[in-house]
């Protein structure tokens, strides 16, 4: 086997998921986790049935907290981080 090709294959095996893909997926996967939780335990989403709920049950809805954390990460952290990662890759080339 050609040594360069062997190195490429080895790199591909080690990095089966690139840093860019990982960072891009982390937020959406967290959001998906929150959505799946809401589907499995809909009674935790009191927004769906807000009557006769206490204040804290309406304010703190854990599946929405997970979704919120995922959205925050995706838009506030991941987007600029991906741009910086791309810029550092371009500078290294």
């Amino acid at each position, binding site marked *: 086997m050609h040594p360069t090709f062997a190195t490429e294959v080895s790199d591909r095996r080690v990095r089966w998921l690139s840093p860019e893909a*990982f960072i891009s997926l*982390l937020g959406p996967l967290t959001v998906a986790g929150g959505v799946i939780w809401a589907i499995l335990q809909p*009674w935790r989403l009191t927004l769906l049935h807000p009557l006769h709920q206490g204040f804290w049950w309406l304010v703190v809805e854990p599946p929405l*907290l997970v979704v919120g*954390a995922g959205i925050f*990460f995706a838009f506030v*952290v991941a987007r600029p*981080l991906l741009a910086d*990662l791309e810029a550092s890759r371009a500078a290294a080339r």
Partner: protein
Amino acid sequence: MQPHAEFVHWLFATGILLVGMCLLAEAVVGREVWQQRPWRRYLWPGIAFTMGVLLWPVMALYTNSAIHMYAHGAWAQVLMLAGGAELGLVRGRLHSRWWRLTWPLAFAVTGTAFLVHEQNAWWFARSAFLHHLLGWTFLLGALVPLALVWRPQSAVLRGMFALTIVAISVMLYTDRDVAPVFGHLSPLAGTPHR
């Protein structure tokens, strides 16, 4: 008007989840890329420090038992110390790597407090189970930030640290005031609610 303990646990779980996600991202892209934007350097240490500050009102308002107050007070102190030390390190005001020992210290104190202040056995109720599980996770997990003091650039250790934090947030999300754990619930625990 005071929220049940489980609401507070879920709110803190969200902060811990954000810290874990940031640590995971930092472990994947590397510290140099992560620290390219100044605000990002302070993000997770700032969240950790803020959670430490917010633990003080938790200590002051949840006075159902003295041992809970001591535990919440201890967590507030060690989280503020570890978060503050990390802020000092990324700011450049602190230089010694030994400041990173504040993280294993925070983990060890937190784990010990979890185990000491839970008076019931593992299968008493879900909250008792989680106290034991969280306690041992923190105590054993303290080895990871301890190893990071000597190998701060290790991506594997940084990833393990991040995953430990994420696992802790998942455990906190599963907390309920009175609920069974794997079908076990002591009749002394009370009536379960949603």
